[in-house]
């Protein structure tokens, strides 16, 4: 062997590497790779979309690839069964089930009730909540979810998801600029498609080297699937958590809004876009339960999130808008006892979630009967 041969080997090696780097930049295979998943094939699909603060303890990851997120969900397990009445549940961390095990989350508790429609179809609820409060994020998730043939959509909302300054801040939205911009343009949303928060990948970012982190995350996420299958854990739930705030600050502020709240202050256009996106699929909008404090300054605020004036205005506006648009709307704001809330004003205990699940299932059965 000579040095010339060694050089030739090195040259070929680097050439091959350069070819792959260029090919990757040119084809951008990440979305396609995201759809390749061991979930629903080798390991069971996840019961909720992947989200994790501590991946090593949660056996999950916060991804930005909606393709990979949906491919890991049990919703992607196969075609809808003939006897299935498919309900998609979108929303925030309360829907997702923060501090709840997967089997304790809202969708799981609704399924556990084993409800069926008069026509014999069994209610099958899928958890598509994601732990950020933003209607735009819900809309983005819904835009992907519509391909899974829902019979009903249940959309629990709360005031904190409505302000315009909350719409484009979730990282999931910022890392999906193309579909989000498409939604903004398609529905004429009052959001800036050139918002600086949108992640604009450079040519280098699109290369194999620039995409090494998302690529590694995709692989790690598949490997966490084994631990998900082995343990059934998808969230690190500490043994003890700080309780929601009972004594509240003497502060009537809500974002930078002033009383009274008006339609233009809240992203009703995003909610409207969601209804339009659903098309013929019925949507049940639910004002989700929240913790109502009895502590200091509870005359000013209901809880840590909401001053009374803002929340009362919001409930009125949402009810009026629903009536005007003919939306099916239910207000469960105080339906769950205060002691059933955990670390924040919207996260519920398993028992509280069960109560909410019963209310929703009953509402769905009633609504679907009415819908017929």
């Amino acid at each position: 062997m000579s040095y010339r041969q060694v050089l030739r080997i090195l040259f070929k090696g680097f050439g091959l590497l350069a070819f792959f780097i260029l090919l990757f930049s040119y084809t951008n295979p990440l979305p396609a790779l995201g759809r390749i998943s061991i979930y629903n094939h080798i390991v069971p699909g996840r019961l909720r979309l992947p989200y994790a603060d501590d991946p090593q303890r949660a056996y999950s990851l916060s991804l930005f690839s909606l393709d990979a997120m949906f491919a890991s969900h049990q919703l992607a397990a196969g075609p809808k069964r003939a006897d299935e009445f498919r309900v998609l549940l979108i929303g925030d961390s309360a829907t997702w089930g923060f501090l709840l095990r997967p089997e304790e989350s809202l969708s799981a508790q609704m399924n556990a009730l084993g409800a069926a429609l008069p026509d014999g179809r069994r209610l099958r609820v899928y958890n598509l909540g994601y732990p950020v409060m933003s209607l735009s994020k819900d809309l983005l998730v819904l835009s992907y979810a519509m391909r899974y043939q829902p019979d009903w959509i249940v959309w629990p909302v709360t005031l904190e998801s409505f302000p315009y300054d909350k719409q484009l801040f979730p990282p999931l939205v910022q890392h999906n600029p193309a579909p989000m911009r498409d939604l903004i343009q398609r529905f004429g949303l009052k959001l800036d498609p050139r918002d600086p928060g949108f992640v604009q990948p450079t040519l280098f970012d699109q290369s194999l080297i620039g995409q090494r982190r998302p690529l590694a995350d995709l692989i790690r996420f598949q490997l966490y699937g084994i631990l998900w299958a082995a343990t059934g854990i998808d969230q690190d739930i500490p043994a003890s958590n700080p309780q929601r705030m009972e004594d509240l600050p003497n502060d009537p502020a809500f974002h930078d809004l002033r009383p009274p709240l008006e339609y233009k202050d809240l992203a009703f256009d995003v909610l409207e876009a969601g209804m339009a996106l659903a098309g013929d699929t019925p949507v049940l909008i639910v004002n989700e339960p929240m913790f109502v404090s009895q502590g200091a300054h509870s005359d000013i605020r209901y809880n840590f999130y909401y001053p009374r004036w803002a929340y009362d205005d919001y409930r009125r506006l949402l009810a009026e808008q629903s009536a005007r648009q003919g939306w099916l709307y239910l207000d469960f704001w105080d339906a769950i006892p205060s002691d059933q809330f955990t670390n924040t004003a919207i996260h519920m205990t398993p028992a509280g979630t069960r109560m909410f699940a019963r209310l929703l299932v009953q509402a769905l059965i009633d609504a679907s009967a009415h819908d017929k």
Partner: protein
Amino acid sequence: MSLFQILIFSMLTLLAGWLRPRWRAYFVLTGSLLAVYWIQPATPVRHLDFWFPTASIFITILVWATTCQNNPPNVRLALKQAIPIIAIVVLVGLTRYLGTVCCLTATRPPEITQVIAASLLVTIILAIILARFNRSYTALLVLVLLIAVFICLKTESLAKLASAALRRLQGQDMLLASPLDLRWLGFSYLAFRLLHVLRDFQLGKVQGASLGEFTSYALFFPALTAGPIDRSQRFISDLRSETRMSPEILLDGGQRILLGIFKKFVLADSLAIMALSPQNAVQTAPGIWAWVLLYAYSLRIYFDFAGYTDIALGMGRWLGIKLPENFTAPYFKTNLTAFWNSWHITLAQWFRSYFFNPLTRALRTGRISLPVWLIILVGQIGTMLLIGLWHGVTWNFAAWGLWHALGLFVHNRWSDWTRPRMSSLEGYPTMRHLANLGGWFLTFNYVTLGWVWFALPDIGLSLAMFQKLFSF
């Protein structure tokens, strides 16, 4: 070693590979002395990340002084060799005053006066050992000292006590003392290299290496963190050889390093995500997935260890040093004895040379006549128990050692029984093939089940894991 450190070492090693052998030897020595500081991670006890590497160097000097060939000793020559090495220690200590520019040690080194005082003390001890002490006694003393330090570091309660004492010395909170404070990187391997030299010295094998050569051997940076445990005579003959860089060496070393990086940073680190751990052992459900976690651990530990070894071998190759192989496809072996001849080979050979062989020899030639099977059983239990405890003095590592000792003993008896019977299979290659396949299946799974003891911190958890593995 991090990937960054490996890449830096690889580049420097590649460049050094082209040097003349004499200059290459200087590079190996200086590189090893500096690497010992660079690789050492930060410790919660103040300045320990400077003192641990310094202690590694000083112990090496001490062992060399005890075992070197020149008898009667030439103190002046010895000091002449020791001073450049001690000067490097002082220079590293001086980086304290470089402020934020400094990046060799994990945290700022201690006051230079302390470093100089320690260096002077070692120089004086060195001179005294060489000039006055009986070398045999000194060798015994150093041997006992090394074993004592090793046991202290590997025993949780003792390490905690030592940490508390060191914290007190540094004026730190003793209540925060933890065995993890004493992460002395590479000490397990260094200690076993030095013990080998000391035992050889006691057996009359005097080593004729210079201090520089001996330090290069003991602290050879590619093999510092994960072995292999080379023999000093073999290493030093390679170091002295006139081997020059050639296309074959370049390619061979490069391939080995790349393969090692792939094994460690792609395969092992990926498998680590889903490998059995104390955390997921509690959480996993019984059945097939518990096995998947265990198999992932089994493969992970192999790729991790073998990957580092490949990197060390590749770098060594570029520097003209052919380190011994440490893993030769152990998971493809068809019996446990063959597995132990191909898993962490240099450690197993070390124990065979310095424990198993002397012990079985003593039992064979002792006054009480013992049956062969008992001699083998005692030898194997003793050896494997010590190999287990080398990883840490815990019940679980002891259980892991016993697991293998019993496996080896059963295999020994089984192969004695089947040897005459297996010869009848000579004419039946399919049967022989099936027997090999069965042997491989049993060996791999026996070894893999043994990792339950190794991976988990206590006996109760290990037994619970076994229960999960066999509950369907």
